[in-house]
């Protein structure tokens, strides 16, 4: 059983950068939690604080109920996979993997057993006597994973482990990491700035922005009920449409249209989020748009449209529908599918 609890964790760097601004989070046993957010939002800092590589300015870090703020990295029982893998260049794959165990005085036979086992899982059997320079990017990545696996740690930490791979390999490794984590059931934290990677890999996503936690939830929760305008526009590709509107007496006024049914929201200016796939094309609908550009993606197509008031909308439709540039379409949206955010705080209202 491993549970990691973060209690209002903060980090201020020596130069005054307030990189992590009070994060409360619980990581459950056997889960893979993804820290996702734009570059510079403090993901790596947070991960490195958990690993013990960065001092914690304030707050508590609890591993299985005991506070580990001041425990040495080596004694935290966490293993980390670095973005550039950080393999020891002069050591063979075998030594790279066994080094940590040797330092922990694990008996030789046990080291061999674990290395062989990890090599089998990661298909590194043939490569054990090679040096990192003689490996491809994907192979190095697997060695870095192997180095973490043999330790049999309580916690796996991955800092953008796939960002140095080409797109195809990245997609493959994503699946492999997911399967491996399911198989080993090691509690893991995976950092990425790529929202697609985050959605596909994680049991839960922690969306970070500017050193703060915006939302934590399963990929579907985060996608279908984003807690803030930031989360809505960060998660999902193609991006969500965000337009300004206003709620007056329970009716939403947006881009010249009126939608009733928002009586639970007090009168205020709002931001309205509409996912591109949530538009319904109907001849009887009220909203008339002109198609500006059609992007064919094969299975899907993306229509870039303009409303009479000059606002842009992205609409996603099944592929091969034969829409032409310049064509007028009429669309509607089910009001349950709309995401309403406060204009001031950006927080979700509905």
């Amino acid at each position, binding site marked *: 059983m491993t549970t990691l609890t973060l209690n209002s964790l903060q980090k201020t760097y020596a130069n005054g950068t307030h990189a992590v601004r009070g994060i409360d989070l619980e990581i459950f046993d056997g889960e893979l939690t993804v820290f996702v957010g734009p570059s510079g939002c403090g993901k790596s800092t947070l991960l490195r604080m958990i690993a013990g590589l960065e001092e914690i300015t304030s707050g508590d870090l609890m591993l299985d109920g005991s506070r580990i703020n001041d425990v040495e990295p080596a004694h935290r029982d966490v293993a980390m996979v*670095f973005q550039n893998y*950080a393999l020891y260049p002069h050591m063979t794959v075998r030594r790279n993997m066994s080094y*940590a165990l040797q330092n922990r005085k694990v008996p030789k036979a046990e080291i061999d057993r674990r290395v062989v086992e990890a090599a089998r899982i990661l298909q590194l059997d043939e490569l054990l006597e090679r040096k*990192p*320079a003689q490996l491809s990017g994907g192979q190095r990545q697997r060695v870095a994973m192997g180095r973490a696996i043999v330790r049999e740690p309580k916690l796996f930490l991955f800092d953008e482990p796939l960002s140095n791979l080409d797109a195809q390999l990245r997609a493959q490794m994503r699946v492999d990491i997911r399967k491996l984590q399911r198989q080993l059931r090691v509690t893991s934290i995976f950092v990425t700035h790529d929202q697609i990677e985050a959605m596909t890999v994680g049991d839960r996503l922690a969306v970070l922005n500017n050193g703060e936690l915006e939302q934590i939830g399963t990929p579907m929760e985060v996608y279908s009920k984003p807690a803030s305008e930031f989360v809505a526009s960060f998660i999902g590709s193609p991006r969500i449409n965000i337009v300004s509107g206003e709620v007056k007496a329970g009716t939403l006024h947006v881009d010249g249209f009126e939608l009733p049914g928002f009586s639970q929201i007090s009168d205020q200016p709002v931001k309205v989020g509409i996912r591109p796939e949530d538009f319904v094309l109907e001849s009887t609908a009220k909203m008339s748009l002109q198609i500006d550009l059609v992007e064919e993606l094969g299975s899907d197509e993306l229509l870039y449209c303009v409303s009479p008031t000059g606002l842009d909308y992205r609409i996603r439709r099944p592929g091969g529908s034969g829409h032409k540039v310049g064509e007028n379409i009429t669309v509607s949206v089910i009001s349950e599918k709309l995401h309403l955010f406060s204009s001031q705080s950006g927080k979700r209202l509905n």
Partner: protein
Amino acid sequence: MKVLWVRYQLLNHLLLILGVAFLALPLWMVFASSTHDPATIIRDGMQLGLSDQFFETYLGVLTEKKGFTEQVTASMMMINSMILGVGFAVGKIIVSMTAAYAIVYFRFPLGTLLFWIIFTTLLLPLEVRIIPSYKVVADLGMLNSYSGLIIPLIASATGTFYFRQFFRSVPDELLEAAKLDGAGAWKFFIDILLPLSRTMMAALFIIMFVVGWNQYLWPLLMTTDESYSTIVLGIKSVMQTIDGNRLPEYNRGFALAILALIPPVLIVILFQRWFIKGLLESDK
């Protein structure tokens, strides 16, 4: 086109051959002269051709006891020089590597200042501080000893600087990975930095060995006992042996010069191959 190219090649080679001749000829003359007897050299000057005294001269300098005190052979002097050269180079590498390790990997007060102080000592060559250095070593009773010959010379600003630059180029993640792998400061140094520095160490060893081997002033001051005399000093003392009406033994001087040349040349050739191999395989 083709003719032009051939001419171009010819010209290049001619230039190269000239350059080699320019560098090698004096060396050859020294070697050739060392195989003649002293009378010929004094009468006819440096020789271009070989004579028949090679074995006599070289065996003589290597085995006969010579010098002012008639106590040392060239082989003993070679051994002394070897001890000085290796001790000097190894000492410098150890000291500068550990100093650089401290400067790069440990935050301590005034670390940067200390580094720059070390660095500015580059501006003070041995000759400038030779009297105080001598005084210190003499007071410590280290005159006429190998440790006295070597230890005062092994602090190296150059070496510290090179190692500092090298350590700074090693990715931080390597240190962090080692931390997570349970390697402390000492283990990180021994298991990771040291093997990664092999190329640097070979390069410094070449340079420092040659510098140490060629030391003249310091051994001259430090050693009054000729059994600590180095080969570079020996050349001088052979030339100075004018006891009674004997001629200066130029042939032996030249032979010593040739002998003094061999180990540094061998070191360069040997370590250069290793050095280049290291460069090709290097992967930080």
